[in-house]
């Protein structure tokens, strides 16, 4: 078969590796999303005390020995698990891949807080004697750590780095991987996002001080975007990394293809440290649609970013209404209602949970909406129960973050 030059400019997903609070494989995760199963549980952390979190339960010794787990970071361990799973899922003959041609691009909301907090806690036990500050602190906290640990574990000698993009990082990692493939900086990309944020008390304390930390007697009901009773974010850990290839390479080896990245956009609000800007969020979605050559009504599933903060959800709905108000066929859902906010992993995890819709035609729900906020009442919202569709061809995934960073990716069924 003759491949066109255009096939070299198409980026496809050929493997998915993930760990979420409610599943450590795509199949289990998707089953949980369709069954309405939450992954939020009671959680206790230093200084903050009892709270709630989305905790991952993957087998960290599947791809690492205990010494490597001890030496590295939780984000690194999550990254290694997800990267190994993605490569295995891609079906690529890893032993025949030139490790110089593999790039690793991992989105993170933050990195280093966990280890720094741990070391500060340690020196408080020794009257602030910095001689007990660990020599592991620097390699654990350098910003490239999660991506670097993946290369160490897998023997990858191509480029690696993290992409710091607040809670848009999962999408940003995916976009970065695609761009590097298009530039031929690599031939096989491992890209997405990870988060270890539940290991830092600061993120809980910060959200609590901001009045944005969720609380509920029933952990499974704590994360409730779009519901009038929502009261904040459930912090979660997790990871989702994709194996990305140029379509020409994937087709040549007969790879299974989950979907094609046909449009993406990243924009900035330039308005506030914390508060989102619906106008810029709209522009981000519109730009992704334009680049994909699509109209709003072409999108079958829109995966929202909404985190269950009172104002953030309303503002994203305003942005969506502006772009998708005329589309009567776009279904809209939210994954954080199941798993909480997986921070750097949120964008890539939330996209992954929707990709099986290309095969089963089902749009998973937004759970925990007992009393829909009228300001969030978008026509296409899929509430509490999954919906069968006539078929899903395009999925748009939103991810936004602090400092006004916006991202949207559009995946096409292949």
């Amino acid at each position: 078969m003759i491949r066109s030059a255009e096939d070299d400019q198409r980026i496809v997903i050929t493997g998915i590796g993930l760990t979420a609070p409610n599943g450590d494989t795509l199949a289990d995760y998707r089953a949980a999303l369709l069954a309405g199963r939450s992954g939020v549980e009671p959680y206790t952390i230093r200084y903050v005390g009892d709270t709630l979190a989305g905790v991952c339960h993957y087998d960290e010794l599947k791809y690492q020995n205990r010494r490597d787990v001890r030496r590295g970071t939780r984000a690194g361990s999550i990254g290694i698990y997800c990267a190994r799973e993605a490569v295995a899922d891609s079906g690529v003959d890893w032993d025949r891949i030139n490790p110089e041609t593999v790039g690793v691009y991992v989105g993170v909301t933050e990195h280093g807080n966990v280890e720094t907090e741990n070391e500060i806690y340690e020196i408080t036990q020794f009257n602030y004697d910095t001689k007990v500050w660990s020599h592991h602190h620097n390699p654990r906290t350098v910003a490239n750590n999660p991506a670097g640990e993946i290369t160490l574990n897998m023997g990858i000698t191509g480029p690696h780095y993290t992409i710091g993009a607040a809670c848009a990082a999962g999408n940003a990692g995916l976009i970065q991987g695609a761009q590097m493939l298009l530039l031929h900086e690599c031939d096989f990309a491992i890209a997405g996002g990870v988060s270890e944020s539940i290991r830092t008390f600061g993120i809980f304390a910060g959200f609590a001080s901001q009045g944005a930390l969720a609380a509920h007697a029933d952990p499974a009901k704590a994360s409730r975007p779009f519901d009038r009773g929502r009261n904040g974010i459930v912090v979660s850990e997790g990871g989702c990394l994709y194996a990305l290839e140029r379509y020409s390479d994937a087709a040549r080896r007969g790879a299974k293809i989950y979907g094609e990245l046909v449009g993406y956009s990243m924009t900035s609000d330039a308005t506030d440290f914390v508060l989102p800007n619906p106008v810029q969020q709209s522009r981000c979605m519109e730009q992704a649609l334009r680049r994909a050559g699509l109209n709003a009504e072409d999108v079958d599933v829109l995966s929202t970013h909404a985190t269950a903060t009172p104002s953030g959800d309303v503002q994203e709905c305003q942005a969506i209404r502006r772009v998708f108000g005329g589309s009567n066929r776009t279904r809209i859902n939210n994954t954080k209602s199941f798993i909480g906010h997986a921070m750097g992993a949120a964008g890539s995890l939330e996209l992954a949970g929707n990709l099986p819709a290309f095969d089963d035609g089902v749009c998973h729900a937004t759970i925990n909406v007992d009393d829909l906020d009228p300001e969030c009442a978008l026509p296409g919202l899929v509430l509490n129960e999954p919906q069968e569709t006539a078929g899903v061809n395009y999925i748009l995934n939103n991810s936004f973050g602090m400092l006004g960073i916006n991202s949207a990716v559009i995946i096409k069924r292949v």
Partner: protein
Amino acid sequence: MTRDQIREEVLDILSDIAPDEDLSSLKDDQSFREQLELDSMDFLDIVMELRKRHRIQIPEDDYMNLRSMDSTVSYLEPLMKDIQKV
């Protein structure tokens, strides 16, 4: 601490630092590196743990004394003789 107690303490530290290793067959007169997968960061962990657990400061010039179990115990013996085993 006695020599035996110091040896037990070093073994305990090693079991934390090298949790995948079988320490039961460790030969005291052979270097750790010949028998265990330890790198320079692991040796710094030994130094750090002795500092944290027993407030023992080991100067960098003395690190060579931590080569084997025998040499480590001999080096630590005068430093730990007044420390009570907990």
